[in-house]
């Protein structure tokens, strides 16, 4: 039954290339475009400079810091000069004057999952960075409080990594002990 409709799969494959990586730069950083949203791809070593420039240029609010584990999906749209790594830290900035958003995607290798904290520019990133550390195991250098935030303190592993199993508890619906 599932094989009846081959057209659907073709459609999905042709559309995967809709976000074509470009060689343009912005703030001296290669950029790409995903569905009309601008993404900056700074280097891990230089990204604090980019953050500094952006914060001086009106991007006063750090809306979100999160990460993605590309373990099972290493292929993605990146500018040619950027080589993909396992982790990607995603920072969302917002400018109230320009009324626009910018997204930063920074590659973080699996062997050395460390990145500088942006606390000194955006103190609001404190809880968000703790969340990324807790769930992905990416450490933020210079973070004032590098502790777990959502998981218990003595927890092993980082749940949102793709090699961390989701797990399930089997539920007995019928003939369960104690069920009337």
């Amino acid at each position, binding site marked *: 039954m599932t094989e009846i409709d081959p057209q659907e799969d073709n459609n999905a494959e042709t559309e995967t290339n809709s976000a074509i990586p470009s060689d343009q730069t912005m703030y001296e950083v290669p950029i790409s475009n995903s569905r009309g949203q601008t993404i900056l791809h700074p280097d891990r070593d230089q990204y604090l400079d980019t953050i500094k420039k952006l914060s001086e240029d009106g991007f006063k609010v750090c809306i979100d810091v999160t990460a993605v584990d590309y373990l099972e999906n290493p292929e993605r749209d990146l500018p040619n000069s950027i080589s993909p790594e396992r982790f990607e830290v995603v920072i969302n900035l917002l400018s109230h*004057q320009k009324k626009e958003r910018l997204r930063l995607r920074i590659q973080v290798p699996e062997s050395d999952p460390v990145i500088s904290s942006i606390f000194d520019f955006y103190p609001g990133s404190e809880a968000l960075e703790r969340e990324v550390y807790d769930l992905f195991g990416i450490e933020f250098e210079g973070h004032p409080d590098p502790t777990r935030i959502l998981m218990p303190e003595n927890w092993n592993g980082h749940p949102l990594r793709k090699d961390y199993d989701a797990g399930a508890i089997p539920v007995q619906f019928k003939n369960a002990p104690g069920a009337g």
Partner: protein
Amino acid sequence: MTPVPYRSNLRMLPELGEVTSMTQNETTLESEIADRVFRRGEDSAILRMSESEIQAYKPQDDRRMVVNMGPQHPSTHGVLRLSLEMEGETVIRSKPIIGYLHTGMEKTGEQLSYLQGATNVTRMDYSSPLFSELAFSLATEKLLEIEVPERAKWIRMLMCELNRISSHLLFQATNGMDIGAVGAMIYGWREREEVLRLLEKITGLRMNHNFIRPGGVAADLPDGWRDDTLQILSNLPERLEDFDGLFTGQPIWHERLQGVGVINSEECLALGVTGPLLRSTGYAWDLRKDMPYLHYDQVDFDVLVGTYGDCFDRFAIRLNEIRESIRIVYQILEKMPSGDYRTQDKKITPPPRTRIDESMEALIHHFKIFTEGFKVPAGEVYVAVESPRGELGCYIVSDGGPKPYRMHIRGPSFTNLQVLPHMLQNALVADAVAVISTVDPIMGEVDR
């Protein structure tokens, strides 16, 4: 503790983007707290220690002690826990400890198809579930690059504004109860229940509606929805007058809220705070107005701002945002077009039940959508909406499959919680209750 001056003189509101602290010139105290959010060391308002370190921590000054508040404290809105370092009754440093409701919803989101995803996200912010659904659906639609029909957009706006009313009424109820006006709970609950009854009639559920889905909404509006909505809209203003009578002008209410938990615009922006908290400082930022989504650019409403950034402003803004929402709903009723309530893209929308009996293609589509789910082209997007608590964003990474590769919800409550230590510093522990209450965190969204 130096008392913070309040209600002295009105100033002009700052221009958007031009951040000025409203009370900057009034005292030296205010200029000192401009950079307080950047502090790292002992003078910071945050007790930066892990849970076990806090347990073992004995302050050197023997007038100080560490007190644990929550997670079962009745005023902490669920399971928020605060560790307070206190000197007498004054809070010196504090740290919110969260995670008691963490159920790994973002991980769950990776196991569910896009059609099932809305069921998951709706359980995050349980007092305004339709907003999470909306953010998730808008993000999915942006990835799919589809446009939903006009009627679906207006239905979404209607539902969201009704939800905003019910959420702010919930705030009035719990806020009153926290501060000691137990009557508020009865009133707030009564009004909220009427709105929930309408939401139940439209969606089938009081909460966790799963009504806004990628591609449109789950069902068309039922018969008589217009009359029911009008009924609520005509009852509410009078009931809101009751709230004004009970609270807004009351001296006890002023004593408890005015000048308590003061924060300024600059600090709010630095901390990434959004929503009524940011607006209470006099900074007019509302995504509905400034970065409109759906058809919010076609309705007329005001963005409400406060002046002092204190608990009273946050209370007043939420109360009056109900009135603005009523204004918006009246306009939505006028402009509601007829037509489809979901997109007619067969790959995304399940076919109607009757079509399945007649058409082989419909059966196949139905089977494919419900067994495998529809595939979403690879890419990543971030979409944000203005929830009653602030900016609610959804970040989805798709690898071209039927399930999100990564689904992240940027919850406003999570980020807004960061202001707590700064608001609580040098406040009395009794004020902590008022501060937590007016920050209005929903723990389901904080912990996800």
